[in-house]
């Protein structure tokens, strides 16, 4: 298999540079999206070609080193050895990388196309596509990285692009702040990531992922060290993937344009943490503690976020919390050892979540920017192309059988059950119910019932252009049938997805009987459909009255949840204010102590200068004047020499002669 895969990240990089450097000033809109979408397309093509190459050689893993970033130097590692450590800029392509690059470039391409329509009226068209391409490049570097250093470069890169794209409309205060919040929260996680990398480097002397896998499987790591490293790395993952405790930035990130939400905060960047854990599966497997932490955090986040999604009124925020929740499911899959199941859900989620976001964007676009669901309604007939695809996405995420989401979610739940973590499994089911409920609440509020739209918006109501609805339709198909690659054996499929990924992430066999699995499947299907029906009952038949009554009867609960459990406020008060108070203390010190010293010095200088002025006036001026008088004196005296008497001149000549001869004699 050739190293075509090394080209995958280069096309978006070129696109980003072209659009960023030249496009902002020089290119027409057509040129901009030709470059941007073209780059994304070429990247997808490269991914497909590489994937095809891999099909013929399953289990292969090709590494391509581009150049040496930091040449080798000796590092002393645990055990007293000193090993040469060097950081290479290297890419590795295997089945996991294949899946990730296909998802990133494929969904990315569709979103680039969609953006041509969505951002058509935006002033900073070129900047947008430049950033989108740059993000794609960074994400691809992340997933193709052969060692943790390269992965970290991509990790930071996507973080930067997330900041740039969330705050794309930076003139808006809330957008700028959201960008900052995202970046800073990520940074906290990155701290853990870096510590984890450092720990691995110090212990093993390498950060190459294959090397780490080999070391872990070869027994070179104690469980304690593995746990420590895994937990540190996982902290980074919670930041990037918006899990407890570092999820607070994601809902605010909805300030960015909708394609950004779709690409970064649904399909790709937030899944970076999942990818990282899957890539280092060998390390995590060594530590039961770490795996349990991952699973518990995942399921807790899944349920917790779902509850918050229930009470959101902004269509994008519902989807944001939904994303947080679904990523929790992915981590559950990883945490119970079913790494391929977690990646499977990553893929199906990329399909249906980006579909949902883009469709929401279509609705918002149709309503001239309205995002509050309370001012929507009855759009079913008005948006004939958006509505059906939106429903497909919702059905997929709710886990309705035959759609992709069902297969992936079910695989995770089955694995949880099989691993004996019944608590996790049960919580997962609750989360699934909530997911179905809030998702269809969204559908019903938006598309059904009487229209509560603003008059202005209603007048301009129009379906989105083809350039936006076409990608939606492609995604809908993917969301519908994308799950069949992982069709479990018990249903007659070949579980092909899991087997494809096995060389990269390890085998996992659900150790449960076929009958139990079918039972579990039926249970989760029932839960999903039940959720939909419940939502229908509440929001269509009873027109939301039960919800209103609940709020009346349990106002405290409602308030708690709708204020997002006050987590943001707690963070704000404790952490942010704490830091700011520290800052003001230091500022006080600076002002009074340091500035006091400085001012004291200044006062001293001033006193000295007053003395100096006096000095200057008398002494110096006197000296200057004195020099003048002295010159006059000398001149008057010297004038006496010009006597006009020849004799004197003659004598002077003689005198000069004497002196010169004396000088010459002494020198010689």
């Amino acid at each position, binding site marked *: 298999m050739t190293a075509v895969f090394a080209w995958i990240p280069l096309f978006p990089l070129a696109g980003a540079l072209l659009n960023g450097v030249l496009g902002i000033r020089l290119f027409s809109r057509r040129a901009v999206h030709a470059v941007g979408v073209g780059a994304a397309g070429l990247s997808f093509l490269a991914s497909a070609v590489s994937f095809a190459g891999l099909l013929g050689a399953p289990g292969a893993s090709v590494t391509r080193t581009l150049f040496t970033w930091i040449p080798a130097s000796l590092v002393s590692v645990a055990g007293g050895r000193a090993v040469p450590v060097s950081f290479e800029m290297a890419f590795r392509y295997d089945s996991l990388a294949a899946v990730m690059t296909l998802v990133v470039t494929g969904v990315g391409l569709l979103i680039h196309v969609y953006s041509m329509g969505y951002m058509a009226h935006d002033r900073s068209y070129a900047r947008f596509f430049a950033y989108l391409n740059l993000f794609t490049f960074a994400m691809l570097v992340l997933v193709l990285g052969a060692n943790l250093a390269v992965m970290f470069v991509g990790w930071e890169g996507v973080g930067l692009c997330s900041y740039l794209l969330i705050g794309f409309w930076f003139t808006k205060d809330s957008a700028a702040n959201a960008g900052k919040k995202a970046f800073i929260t990520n940074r906290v996680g990155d701290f853990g990531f870096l510590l984890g990398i450092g720990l691995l480097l110090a212990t093993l002397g390498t950060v190459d992922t294959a090397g780490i896998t080999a070391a872990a499987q070869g027994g070179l790591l104690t469980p304690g060290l593995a746990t420590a490293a895994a937990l540190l790395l996982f902290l980074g993952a919670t930041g990037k993937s918006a899990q407890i405790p570092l999820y607070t930035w994601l809902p605010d990130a909805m300030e960015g344009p909708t394609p950004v939400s779709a690409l970064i905060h649904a399909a790709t960047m937030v899944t970076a943490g999942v990818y990282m854990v899957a890539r280092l599966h060998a390390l995590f497997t060594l530590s039961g503690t770490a795996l349990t932490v991952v699973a518990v955090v995942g399921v807790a986040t899944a349920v917790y976020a779902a509850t918050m999604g229930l009470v959101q009124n902004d269509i994008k925020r519902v989807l944001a919390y939904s994303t947080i929740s679904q990523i929790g499911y992915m981590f559950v899959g990883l945490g119970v050892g079913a790494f391929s199941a977690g990646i499977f859900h990553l893929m199906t989620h990329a399909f249906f979540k980006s579909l949902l976001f883009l469709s929401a964007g279509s609705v918002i676009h149709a309503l001239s920017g309205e995002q509050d669901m309370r001012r929507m309604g009855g759009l079913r007939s008005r948006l004939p192309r958006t509505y059906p695809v939106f429903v497909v996405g919702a059905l997929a995420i709710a886990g309705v059988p035959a759609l992709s989401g069902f297969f992936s979610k079910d695989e995770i739940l089955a694995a949880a059950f099989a691993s004996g973590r019944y608590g996790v499994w049960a919580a997962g089911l609750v989360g699934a119910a909530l997911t179905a409920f809030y998702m269809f609440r969204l559908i019903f509020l938006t598309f059904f019932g009487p229209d509560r739209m603003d008059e202005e918006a209603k007048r301009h109501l129009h379906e989105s252009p083809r350039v936006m609805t076409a990608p939606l339709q492609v995604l809908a198909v993917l969301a519908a049938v994308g799950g069949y690659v992982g069709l479990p054996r018990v249903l007659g499929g070949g579980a092909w997805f899991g087997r494809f990924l096995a060389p990269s992430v390890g085998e996992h066999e659900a150790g449960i009987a076929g009958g139990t699995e079918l039972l579990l499947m039926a249970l989760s299907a029932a839960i999903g459909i039940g959720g939909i029906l419940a939502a229908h009952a509440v929001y269509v038949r009873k027109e939301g009255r039960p919800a209103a009554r609940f709020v009346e009867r349990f106002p405290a609960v409602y308030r708690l949840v709708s204020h997002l459990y006050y987590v943001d406020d707690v963070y704000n008060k404790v952490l942010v204010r704490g830091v700011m108070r520290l800052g003001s203390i230091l500022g006080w010190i600076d002002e009074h102590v340091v500035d006091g010293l400085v001012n004291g010095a200044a006062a001293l200088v001033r006193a000295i200068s007053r003395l100096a002025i006096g000095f200057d006036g008398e002494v110096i001026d006197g000296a200057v004047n004195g020099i003048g008088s002295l010159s006059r004196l000398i001149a008057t005296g010297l004038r006496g020499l010009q006597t006009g008497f020849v004799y004197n001149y*003659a004598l002077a000549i003689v005198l000069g002669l004497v002196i010169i001869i004396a000088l010459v004699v002494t020198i010689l």
Partner: protein
Amino acid sequence: MIPINAVFGLGLLLFFIGLFGVLFRKNLVIMLMSLELLLNGVNILFAGLGHHLKSPRGSIFALFVILMAVSEAAVGFALVLSFFRSKKTYDVDEMNELKG
């Protein structure tokens, strides 16, 4: 060979006689003549050295000195003539108009 000391002594004496003449006489013309004495003394020194070191250079320098003397005499006389026309006197003490 003539002892070089004698030549030196002669040259020196002539030089200083001329020097004293320049410094102590008020008559301008006699001052100028004393200058010629100076130059003669120097010429003797040159010739003596040339003789002593068996080099033609002594004579050559002396030749140039004579040239200088001639030039200086000519110009000097011209100045004397013009001065006399204005002042009607050769008293050097009267020549003080360049007083600064």
